[in-house]
């Protein structure tokens, strides 16, 4: 391995988004002709690093060398010229153009008005697909190709631009085991040709099967690079999660009461399968797992946004069918969604109108909205959650992210919910406000509400929850009581190891 020439040397690569460090001072060397795994938790900076190499993002600081020469990857076109290609998980293509056009896209010689050399395009496309050992009709349109075949077309496209570095960002997630085998064989063949592959995946099994070396990222920093044979799965997981954040402790544990929500065998094909759990009053259940494990889908099903296909939900011991959010609210459910801007706030409307959106009957007992009532209710809510604002009339989008999130939580508390589902409630929120949120969540449990907390932050789950369920690839793979849960055990259950996606 050490004898191989160096292809890429990254030094001090840093990236900030809106004042937040996403990557800090990453150094990484990539040899020619190796398959190199990038591992890390959600938000560790793997994809950002890949996008910097592919010219999609520009680093805030840092230098890149390619074959010993300093390079500036200023755009995807520059990356293509330098021989760097990024294969997306869900391939981006031109669905109405032919496979051949998608493969040679952006490389046709000649002026804008010169004749299109169809025969050459088709012959070239066939040649690149043959190199991959893939047989596809190159004249058919992209639309309707399987995701696996679309990935092949993307890889063929990277060959067409003679890429020396091919970055695959979680390529196996949407593939069947057989398609994964084919992809791996192709990856190995590309390695033999002296090309370098960066392989981003959550599946340790696959990394072990395919890769020569692994690099672990955590919180935007490069933690370790090792040959795959010299590091165990447990060590990798430990390196992925080892945190320096100080632990938050819940002040009191709430008394756990009778069953509030019982879910049995809930399934939605393609999203989650056979999900069962019981949530009691005063209890906080954490739902851990990686992004895409189906946690949000379960929450959306419970709240009626995208109902489950089969299974039973019972609330307070009574069977319930929830087909839309209004029915869920009627039954005492509340849902603070993960995507605050898309599913939570009415950005240009006032804070007041945002706060009272879910309680029409309270602000308009007579059918007409009582301004006085509405104002009273919303000022009370603002005080209770100490939402910082200049005026109730100001558009909610002017508030900071944390205060917007408090306003959404306040909207739901006004409905007096029995069951609260919180999906990544502290994402993108300042540390100070985070602690406030933790206190609030603890208080809500003490007040007898049942809480389902979805979070990707392990310390958050460990410090707040009475029990932690872990989901992986649509199924609940583990359940830990508060006392025995550790970051390692949660991560072990969250990382799909078999590589056998359904």
């Amino acid at each position, binding site marked *: 391995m050490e004898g191989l020439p160096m292809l890429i040397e990254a030094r001090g690569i840093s990236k900030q988004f809106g004042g937040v460090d996403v990557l800090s001072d990453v150094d990484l060397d990539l040899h020619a002709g190796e398959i190199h795994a990038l591992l890390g938790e959600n938000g560790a900076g793997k994809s950002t690093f890949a996008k910097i190499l592919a010219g999609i993002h520009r680093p805030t600081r840092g230098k890149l060398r390619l074959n010993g020469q300093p390079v500036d990857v200023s755009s995807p076109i520059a990356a293509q010229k330098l021989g760097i290609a990024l294969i997306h998980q869900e391939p981006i293509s031109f669905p109405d153009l032919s496979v051949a056009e998608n493969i040679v896209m952006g490389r046709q010689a000649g002026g804008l008005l010169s004749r299109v050399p169809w025969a050459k395009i088709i012959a070239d496309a066939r040649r690149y697909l043959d190199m991959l050992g893939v047989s596809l009709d190159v004249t058919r349109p992209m639309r309707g190709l399987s995701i696996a075949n679309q990935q092949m077309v993307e890889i063929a496209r990277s060959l067409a631009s003679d890429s020396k570095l091919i970055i695959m960002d979680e390529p196996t997630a949407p593939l069947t085991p057989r398609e994964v085998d084919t992809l791996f064989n192709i990856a190995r063949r590309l390695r033999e040709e002296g090309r370098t592959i960066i392989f981003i995946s959550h599946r340790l099994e696959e990394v072990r099967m395919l890769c020569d070396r692994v690099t672990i990222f955590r919180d935007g920093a490069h933690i370790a690079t090792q040959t795959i044979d010299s590091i165990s799965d447990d060590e990798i997981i430990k390196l992925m999660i080892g945190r320096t954040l100080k632990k938050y402790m819940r002040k009191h544990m709430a008394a756990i009461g009778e069953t509030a929500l019982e879910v049995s065998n809930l399934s939605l094909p393609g999203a989650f399968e056979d999900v069962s759990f019981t949530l009691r009053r005063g209890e906080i259940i954490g739902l851990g797992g990686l992004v895409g494990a189906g946690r949000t889908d379960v929450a959306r099903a419970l709240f009626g946004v995208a109902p489950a296909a089969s299974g039973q939900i019972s609330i307070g011991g009574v069977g319930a069918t929830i087909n839309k*959010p209004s029915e869920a609210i009627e039954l005492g459910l509340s849902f603070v969604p993960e995507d605050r801007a*898309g599913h939570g706030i009415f*950005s240009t409307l006032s804070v007041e109108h945002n706060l009272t959106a879910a309680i029409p009957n309270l602000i308009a007992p007579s*059918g007409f909205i009582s301004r006085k009532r509405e104002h009273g209710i919303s000022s009370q809510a603002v005080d209770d959650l100490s939402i910082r604002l*200049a*005026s109730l009339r100001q558009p909610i989008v002017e508030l900071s992210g944390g205060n917007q999130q408090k306003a959404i939580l306040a909207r739901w508390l006004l409905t007096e919910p029995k069951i609260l589902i919180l999906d990544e409630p502290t994402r993108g929120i300042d540390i100070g406000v985070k602690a406030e949120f933790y206190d609030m969540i603890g208080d809500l449990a003490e007040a007898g509400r049942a809480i389902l907390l979805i979070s990707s932050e392990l310390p958050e789950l460990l410090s707040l929850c009475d029990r932690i369920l872990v989901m992986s690839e649509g199924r609940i793979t583990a359940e830990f009581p508060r006392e025995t849960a550790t970051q390692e055990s949660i991560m072990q259950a969250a990382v799909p190891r078999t590589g056998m996606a359904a």
Partner: protein
Amino acid sequence: MTDASTTQTRKLAPARPTWHVVLVRPETMTFFLLIFGLVGASYLSPFFLDMNYILRSFTLTAEMSIVALVLTMVVISGEIDLSPAANMALSACIFAWVQDAGVPMPLSVIVGLLAGLAMGALNAFMSIRMQLPSIIVTIGTLIFFRGLAQVLAGDRSIRVPDSFIGINTVMVVGIPLPVVIFFIVAIILGLVLGATVIGRQIYQIGTNQEAALHAGINAKRIKVGLFLVLGLVSAAAGMMAASRLGSVRYDLVLGGELQMVLMAMLGGTYIFGGRGTILGTFLAAWLLVIASTGMTVANLLPAIQLTVLGILLIVAIIATNFIYARTQR
């Protein structure tokens, strides 16, 4: 992702001064243009400030203005309907044809209204149930309704009985009945949009339909309701036009959809939904009448009048958006 650099005590945005809040209201620009139009027109011709003349002029577009009020609500909810003018023509033709065939007058009116309701239902079905873009759907139904009206009426005018003619000559305390109806509809819809939960939810749906859904708001039902009301009101407006004109042709208010959209836009309604008021459209309807009658009394050529109306719309939209963008950070 730790974020230690951001301090807890982030500076709060100061509350906006009142004049600021008023200036960004959607109908403010319309109001200023209206004042400007009144002053300008009375300067051009001393005969202009004759109230009766203005009111009589307004009756010519009162039907469309009434429909524009409902259309405003549809646009705020994030949809659009370009078929109401064609709906007016087809409903009026069906009404006139049915009563010409001997059906008693009250029943004919009901048939006309039901026809309008059915047209609204067709738009709602395709735009909301089948989730097709309403702008395409209603361009289709605009042509379809107009075509049906032509099939039904051919090239002839269908007379309506004398007893039905002359809604514009009926005076209520000195104001023509169509104008009175416009006032009443404006007050009712203004209350619905400004002071009821349904009105509030129309804004919320238009601002962010997904968030509305997550807040338990039944966006589809409200939108379907709006399309139905728009269909019904269009039919009523079509029959009002029949009464004013004395006969019905397939080309009744041909091209009227543009004028209705013009009223809503000129009143500050945001074409992508979420912003707008009934007051704005109300003022815009008057602004259009005053601008065109002002230009007529000033003996401006019709071609120039059209140009001026176009410029008016562009100026209003640029000004509103400019002020709005400036005040959003």
